[in-house]
């Protein structure tokens, strides 16, 4: 709780420094202000980019839930299951809901929405006046353990992440926002679902690939892993590899999202 207060204080301080007013930015309810900092990407695209400055941004405290997504499709008929164009949502879009406007027992209201494509996730965030986080923003926020802004080298934190990756996902996902938030006060960046980022998979594209006609160089993550910045970050490796295998219309049962601003 003390940390949460600190986060709010930081947020207010940040806003007051920027705008001279001690009020939260409009439309950021349910979001956390992640202060500006330095992100060390797992795959620095060039030696100069081993440390990347990340500007302050707001990130949803929890992933978007089924109930929230239902409100979106109610207001936006073209994004309902059965109406949304296949090129944007693939074939499994919201297939665990019991109907286009009914959640059903496989999709509890407070569980994170999954089986949503990148296009649908993006449309939801835009509808909210937000956007999907970039990969750097997401990774920067997710590097925080419960006690430190960067837990990537904390063996206990890394072990917890790997345990989650080793465990199969339950058929019905639990509610969002359970358990301890991370250092910034954000929940569920690990341990519940995978999440879309706006520029998914782009990390695997290195400047060298401009000059190389071999498509495998772009598609195969193993080659790029040689350049990985932190060889012990297996969890990070899995996230980058997973994201690089995605396609914007994929809708799968372990992939959801949250928005940034």
């Amino acid at each position, binding site marked *: 709780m003390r940390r949460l207060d600190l986060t709010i204080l930081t947020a207010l301080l940040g806003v007051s420094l920027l705008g001279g007013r001690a009020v939260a930015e409009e439309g950021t309810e349910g979001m956390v202000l992640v202060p500006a900092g330095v992100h060390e990407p797992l795959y620095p*695209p*060039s030696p*100069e*980019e081993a440390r990347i400055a990340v500007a302050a941004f707001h990130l949803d405290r929890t992933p978007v839930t089924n109930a929230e997504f239902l409100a979106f499709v109610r207001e936006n008929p073209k994004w309902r299951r059965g109406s949304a*164009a*296949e*090129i*944007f949502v693939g074939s499994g879009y919201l297939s665990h809901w019991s109907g286009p406007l009914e959640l059903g027992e496989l999709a509890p209201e407070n569980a994170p929405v999954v089986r949503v494509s*990148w*296009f649908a996730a*993006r449309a939801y965030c835009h509808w909210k006046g937000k956007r999907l986080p970039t990969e750097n923003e997401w990774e920067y926020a997710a590097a925080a353990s419960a006690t430190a802004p960067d837990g990537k080298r904390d063996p206990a934190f890394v072990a917890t992440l790997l345990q989650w990756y080793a465990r199969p996902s339950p058929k019905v996902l639990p509610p969002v926002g359970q358990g301890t938030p991370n250092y910034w006060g954000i929940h569920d960046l690990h341990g519940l679902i995978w999440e879309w980022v*706006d*520029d998914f*998979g*782009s*990390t*695997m*594209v*290195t*400047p*060298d*690939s*401009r*000059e190389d*006609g*071999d*498509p495998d160089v*772009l598609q195969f993550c193993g080659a790029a892993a040689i350049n990985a910045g932190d060889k012990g970050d297996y969890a990070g490796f899995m996230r980058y590899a997973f994201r*690089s295998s995605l*396609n*914007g*219309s994929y809708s799968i049962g372990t992939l959801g999202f949250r928005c940034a601003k």
Partner: protein
Amino acid sequence: MRMFVAAIAFLFPALAYAQEHPVLPSQEVSAGDSIYLLEGEFTDQHGKTVRLKDFEGKPVVVSMFYASCPHACPLLISDIKKVERDVPEKLRRDLRVVLVTFDPDRDTPAKLRELGEAHRVDMSRWSFLRTDPDRVRELAALLGIRYRFGKDGSIGHSSVITLLDREGRIAARIDGLRQPNHDLVREATTLLEARK
């Protein structure tokens, strides 16, 4: 599967129609697969505002690039010119080429026109388009093109040449530079021969 259905449709149009579209009119069924569902405005090398849907009705070769790209993009353009050359001459005038820049900040219509002139392409059939960064990202996702901005101003990207049929559905693609183009050229020729 789509390619299979397309092949069957070519051989047995009536049969394929019966299997693919049992109830709904064909445009309603196929509309879900069309790149032309991507909304938003683009500006061409003449400064004219266009939408992707404006290309409906003709087979289109589409790719993404940026004008200041030193290595891959000239090769990409030359690969597309080769596709054009390999399509029978009498059918060629019906083929359209659309190149969308990753770099709307730097690639103004004037710069795009200059590029087209430098590559001596037929500007009545080639469109060099720019749009906003959001639309760039969405189109790249639809075409399966990955890209990222480098710190030095370069843009790393995959080179993919995609053939769209007259309705904007993906009919063939070439992944990478200097790859064999036979399949895409054959598909383009088939589409061009099936005159409406």
